[in-house]
């Protein structure tokens, strides 16, 4: 019987973080499943779902040497082992950019949430005064797309940014 754990690691970037963390997990025969790992400015962030028979405390102990110098923080917690119900609908890429100010992500995503649009991936970058948000979103079947676009435009205008919602072309081969 194995449990699904979410292992989150974040801290000052250096070569070897992924190698160290995954080696510690491999030592417990934990199986890495979906993960995302990325560099946010100088902070390297990783979230990994692992299946393991080891308890949370054992995983934390295995990762302790990785965090010993205090530059990395680790969180290990059990999560429900169920796939999320996929939202049936149309994939789109959402592009937002403009002058940075508080509330851009909140304003834009609130207008998506109001229509049941699901965010399946999102990243942001701040470069000087320029704020860039790029997201992959699913417009549920039957949604009023014109209303989604109108609300997005309103939210963008309120935040002083520009928004584009572009369908993703998937070529089935």
């Amino acid at each position, binding site marked *: 019987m194995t449990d699904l754990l979410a292992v989150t690691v974040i801290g000052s970037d250096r070569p070897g973080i992924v190698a160290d963390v995954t080696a510690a997990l491999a030592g417990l025969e934990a199986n890495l499943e979906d993960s995302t790992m990325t560099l946010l400015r100088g902070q390297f962030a990783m979230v990994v779902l692992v299946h393991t028979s080891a308890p949370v405390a054992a995983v934390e102990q295995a990762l302790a040497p990785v965090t010993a110098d205090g530059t990395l923080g680790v969180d290990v917690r059990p999560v429900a082992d169920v796939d999320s119900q996929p939202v049936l609908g149309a994939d789109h*890429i959402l592009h937002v*950019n403009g002058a*940075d100010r508080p509330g851009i992500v909140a304003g834009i995503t609130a207008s998506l949430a109001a229509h049941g649009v699901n965010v399946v*991936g999102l*990243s942001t970058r701040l*470069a000087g005064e320029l704020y860039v948000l*790029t*997201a*992959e979103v699913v417009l549920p079947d039957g949604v009023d797309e014109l209303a989604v676009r109108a609300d997005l435009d309103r939210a963008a205008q309120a935040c002083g940014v520009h928004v584009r919602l572009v369908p993703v072309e998937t070529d089935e081969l």
Partner: protein
Amino acid sequence: MTQAVGPAGDAGDDGVSWTMPELPPGTVREVVRAPAEILATAGAAVDPTDPATIALAADLLATQAVSPGCVGLAAQQVGEALRVFSVDVTGHPKTRTCHGAFVLCNAEVLSASRKGKGREGCMSVPDLTGDVARARRLTVRGQLPVTGEWVEIETDAFEAVCLQHEIDHTEGLLFLDRVVGPQAVHRRQTYL
């Protein structure tokens, strides 16, 4: 095949039947950076024979020439919401077909095919790059400054990408508006 057609390319087997008119000396202009509103403003059509358009064309080429790694520059990038841009991909390692240094006014894409993904940077977004899918075969129609002659440019590879990037600028779009997904915007690691 590398097709080395200079700005004074003659009619021949390569199908290039136009010559970039001579421009007056240009002035190096300051390049505008995002989030400046002008970069999100679609350009107005211009009269290519208007002395102001001709001066802008010369300024774009002059500014591009002194900017390291710059292969194209649009009017929006020097603060004018107009449908004018310059291109010069001469000598770039990814260039195949090359029409040298030229300026187009009121340009539009006639046909685009063979999409490929590449990583783009832009002088107006100096700290970020992005992965963008664009056509590698392209036919563009536009007017030359000075004469106003309508020309069709058939190109490929890097020049095709550059033309699409610049035409986007004249329509108020940045490469950030075309990146392929949430993980496709990158903090620049190296600067030219």
